[in-house]
Structures are given as C-alpha cells and as structure tokens.
C-alpha cells in the first residue's frame, strides 16, 4: 500500500464507509465548499462563472453536481483542485478539505494534495493521458510524484489498480500507448490513474458523457464499487439527471453559477422545490407520456456576463414575480435540504 505518510491523514468518519445516508453532522467532513465565488476577468467584462456555491461531501458519499452548459459546474470542480487559470480567479468563499482551507494555498502545498489526496477525472481522457508516453510510464510517474517508492513497487501498484478498474490483461496494457485503446478503455485508464494514490476525494467531470450506454454502465459500476469499498468521496459532475439518479446519494443542482437546490437524491427527484429542478425533471423524456409534448422550460440559459441581480432563472420561470428581482434567500427544508427560491414547488415532480 502506497501512501504519502507526510500528507494529511483523513479524519475518521462517524459511521462505516458506504452508509447511504450520512447523519447531519457528518455531511461535508471530507469536502466543505462554502459560498464559493470564481470570476473570470475578461476584456468584455466580469464573468461570474461560480457565484455563491456551497456543498459538502463525506467519506464514501457520492454527490451529483448537476447543471447545464455554462452553469459553472466544471469551474466549481476546477476551483476545488486549484486549476483555475487567469483571467479566472477564486475571489471569495472557502473550500475546506478534511478541515484544511484550500483557497489561498500556495502552489507547492496544492501540488502535494492534487493527484494524491484529491484526484480528478475529466470528460475527455486524453486530457489526463499523454499521447506520446506509454501507460506504465505515466502511472509510475503519478505514484513517484507523491511517494518515495521504487519502480518495481510502483509498477505492481499500477497493475493492481488496472485490474481493479476492469482491465483484463494489465501487463500487456501497461506497455501500450493511449491511442491503442478504445474510448471506454482510455477512460478506465484515466480512472485508474486517479485511484493510484488512494485519494480521499475524486472529482469526476462528465466522465461518461462521450461513452456508449453499455460502456457507461461499466464505468458507473466501477465508480460505485470504488466508493463502497474504499470510502472515497465522489463528486460526479454531469448534465444528465438520469445518471446521478442511479449513482448519487445527494444532488446539488446548479444554475447560472449558483447552487439552486440540494438534498438527498430521492427528495430532490421526487419532490423538487426549485422551479428549475422541477422543469429539468419534467423535460426528461421517460417522465412524459409517449407522443405527448414534453414539459419544456422556455428560453435559454442567460449569459453570465453582466448578469443582473436577483434570481437568474426568473426570465424562464412561470412562478416569478417582481419579488424575484431581489436576491432569493437560501431556505433550509429539513435535513440537508436547501433551496434558493421565493416560491418553491411543494407538490412533487409529477
């Protein structure tokens, strides 16, 4: 087992890993993001890509971070890993990982955490893989960057992890180049690299969007097994509600840079409070009677450049009033349930 002994040790969780519903005080003991703000200072103006997002993930828990393009879900993931480059900047809020503040951490300290304690899986596995290096080179490199181990031990660890993600003949595969793999296989290798150092948190950014249904199911299976067995916390970023319905324990819905609603997966999907979540669930084809028109959300996502104050969804919302020109308050609804709306739905998703 390879673990950087100098690195921060994970806090002991109150309950066993993999328990489906965490208790209230346990929420966010691996990662706690509080009122995160990441802005991009472009020539045409300030793009508030993430403008007030709070969520937490605990050991062994899967959080589905759901939103459409431009909702800021990817930038949120990048912010946690300190991957936001100029003109982007984390301008406010806090990101606490196992109690340690990540905002404002210097590059060297961040580098120690990134790839070791927190790993990321990207939508396009070729963002992780170097096309001109063999898989074994890349995997050994990733281990030796964080731990003082010999080549042979690192190779053995790589082999073990490849087997774990369902790659049948790891010895042969280790000697291959990325272009010799299929899309699904590449994504497995990218996941294997994320697992090498046994991270406490994995942020997965739409890792199955480009894959076929049968291959997607295989990757979801690996992710699920992983969280159950190792207690790794997982943030699964996606635009697809149906994927997180099967995978996630909790859901956080983002719209135009804000978290508009979050809660346990069953609560959010069965009793959506925010009109946007309600509309999103309504526009999933399987929820509608065949041949009938889908319940669509009118209009389109607003530009994040110079977004006016108030609720960003009001132009598309059938419940909006003049009140919505003011900033909607964050309202707590029972256990771990939050919504940002003046007029939340109450009647369930049907």
């Amino acid at each position, binding site marked *: 087992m390879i673990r950087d002994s100098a690195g921060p040790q994970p806090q002991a969780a109150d309950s066993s890993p993999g328990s489906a519903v965490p208790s209230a005080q346990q929420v966010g003991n691996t990662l706690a993001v509080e009122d995160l703000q990441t802005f991009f200072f472009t020539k045409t103006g300030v793009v508030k890509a993430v403008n007030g997002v709070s969520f937490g993930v605990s050991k062994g828990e899967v959080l589905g971070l759901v939103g459409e393009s431009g909702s800021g879900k990817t930038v949120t993931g990048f912010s946690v890993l300190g991957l936001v480059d100029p003109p982007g900047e984390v301008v406010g809020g806090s990101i606490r990982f196992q109690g340690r503040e990540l905002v404002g951490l210097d590059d060297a300290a961040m580098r120690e955490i990134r790839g070791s304690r927190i790993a990321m899986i990207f939508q396009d596995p070729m963002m992780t893989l170097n096309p001109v290096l063999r898989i074994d080179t890349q995997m050994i490199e990733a281990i030796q960057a964080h731990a003082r181990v010999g080549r042979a031990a690192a190779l053995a660890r790589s082999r073990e992890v490849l087997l774990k993600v369902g790659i049948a003949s790891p010895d042969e595969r280790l000697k291959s180049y990325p272009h010799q793999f299929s899309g699904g296989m590449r994504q497995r290798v990218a996941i294997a690299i994320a697992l090498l150092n046994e991270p406490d948190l994995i942020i997965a950014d739409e890792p199955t969007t480009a894959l076929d249904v049968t291959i997607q199911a295989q990757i979801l299976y690996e992710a699920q097994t992983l969280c159950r067995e190792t207690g790794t916390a997982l943030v699964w970023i996606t635009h697809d509600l149906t994927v997180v319905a099967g995978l996630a324990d909790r859901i956080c819905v983002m719209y135009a840079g804000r978290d508009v609603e979050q809660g346990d997966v069953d609560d959010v999907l069965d009793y959506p409070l925010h009109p946007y979540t309600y509309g999103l669930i309504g526009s999933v084809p399987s929820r509608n009677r065949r041949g009938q028109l889908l319940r669509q959300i009118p209009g*389109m996502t607003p530009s994040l450049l110079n977004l006016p104050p108030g609720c960003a969804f009001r132009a598309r919302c059938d419940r909006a009033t003049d009140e919505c020109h003011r900033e909607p308050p964050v309202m707590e609804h029972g256990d771990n349930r939050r919504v940002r709306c003046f007029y939340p739905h109450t009647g369930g998703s049907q």
Partner: protein
Amino acid sequence: MNVGRVAAPMLEARSLTKRFVKHLDLAAKLVRRFGADIREEVVQAVDSVNLVVGQGEVVGLVGESGCGKSTLGRMVAGILEPSEGDILFRGSSILGAGNSQAREAALKVQMIFQDPFASLNPRMRVADIVGEAPLVHGIITRAEFSDYVDDVLDRCGLDGSFKRRYPHQFSGGQRQRIGIARALAVKPEFIVCDESVAALDVSIQAQILNLFMELRESLELTYLFISHDLGVVEHLSDRVVIMYLGRVVESTTTDALFEQPNHPYTQALLREVPRLESRHSEFLPVKGEIPSPLDPPGGCHFHPRCPHAMPRCSAEAPALKEIRPGWVSACHLND
C-alpha cells in the same frame, strides 16, 4: 399516436450494404507483390439491412457507436452511395443521379445533423442557408424569397429578424433550429434526424423534441430518428430498429420492445439505460467492448458479450426472423 398503423411503405431499403475499403497504396502493393500478406482493409459498415418506413411513421434507429446507424441514415438521405442494395421512395428507386424523377424524390428526403456547429456554413447568412435550396430548385422565386424564409424560420421558432445574422451569433439550440429550417425549406416529406438532439442541454433538447412532434403533426412528416438515447427514442418513435455492428438485430413497435425485448443485446441496452426512477441502483453491466467493425466476430456479432451464447452462435449468423407479427429478431434462442 397511430401506433401500429399499417401504412403503405413510404421509404424502403432493400438489402442495403455499405462497405468502406481502404485501398492499398503503391508501397503496400509492391510489398504484396513480393509475397507479404497485406490485404485491403474492409469495413462492412452496413450489412444487407432491410428497412421499411410507412407514411407518417416515426422509426427510431438505435445502436452504439460503430453500429452503422449513421451510415444507414446517410444512404437513405442520399448522401452516401450504397455498395449494394436499393432504396425506394414511394415505390421508385432514388439511386441513379441522372434520373430527374430520382432527383425529385431525393429532394423529398432531407437530413438534420447532430452537430449544430459543424453543419452550418459559417460564412453564409441565415437567410441564404435556409433560402438557397428552394430558390435553386425552383420552389420559390426571388421575389418570394424574403417572405418564404420568414415563414420557415417562424415555423421553427425563430424570429424572422434574425435572418441577416451569421450562424456563430446563435446558441446551440437556435442553430439546431436553423438546421431544421434548412431541411424544411425544400418541403420534404421524409426527414432523417441523425442524433439531432444529442449535443443539446436537457432543457433545450426538450424544446427541439417538441418542435419535431409539432412539425410532424402540422406538416405530416415521416421521420427516421437515429439516436443512441433510448429514452428519447422511446418517447418519440412508433417503431424501433436496433442495430449492432452493421446488422439489424431486432425491430418491432416501441411498446412491445420496451415491455418485452427479445434479443439479448436489446435486453442489455434497456437494462443499462439510466432512468430517473432507478435510484441507488446496482449497475450490472454487460461485459466487454464493442468489437472493431474491421474484424467483427464470426457468427452472431454479439456472441462474445452475450450471456446466453452457445457454440452455434459463434459458427452461424442468426437470420432475422419474424417471431410475432411485425416483430423480427435475430437470435438462435428463438428457434
């Protein structure tokens, strides 16, 4: 809506086959002359597929990447020339470009593409993208041009005042609407939609699907709807055709297919479609990858991944047989 309606075939594909051949270059030919074992690489993208689409019907064509569904769609739309087989539109062949009747028929079949960014000419204004084809084909005169374009754009939910703009000034959903307007401008009767909503956000996807359904009603359109998304296909189609590695493996009405899938591949696909209703699910994926179409497995193409595979499956390709009226499936288990 008109499920199971028996209708005269509007479009018919008869043992349609498409082979892509990578020809040997000069060096490879020379090496072969000296006795090296080099052969031309042949991909059998579509392997003698029969397809019948009735008037007013929506047929969903489903399969994973590399199964040949796009190639089939492109042949039907007249973009690709088939290697073998014939395509009939209202009983007459649309192959053979010289034939004016065939050209007329080809105009009645239009295609809407997947990528709303790559399928519009970035240097043409919207008015020209939509209006050029009807003008060239003599459907409208120059004097009617402006009004006609306004009319078509309006039908697709776009404001006529947008028509002086270029494609880059629109969002993905609006661009897809422009693509639809372009297809509708020549007054088609049959539309091939190739993954036309795959690149869109969920809320925009619902808008475009609704538009497809409204247009179907108002213009009496017939669709071949190609998609990998079974949820979308289930919602929109009357009948579903499932393809795997170039062959049709199962085809029946949407209700029957989603209730009682017959072919093991269809069963696997349906089981693995993520649904809103399946929470905290146990994922039990089908094993293995989709084989390379360059070197497909012998017998039934699905046998290396099939949980029910028998020795016969690797030796003999199962024929597409009628298992119930209007329901065909290609599996040895049905014998």
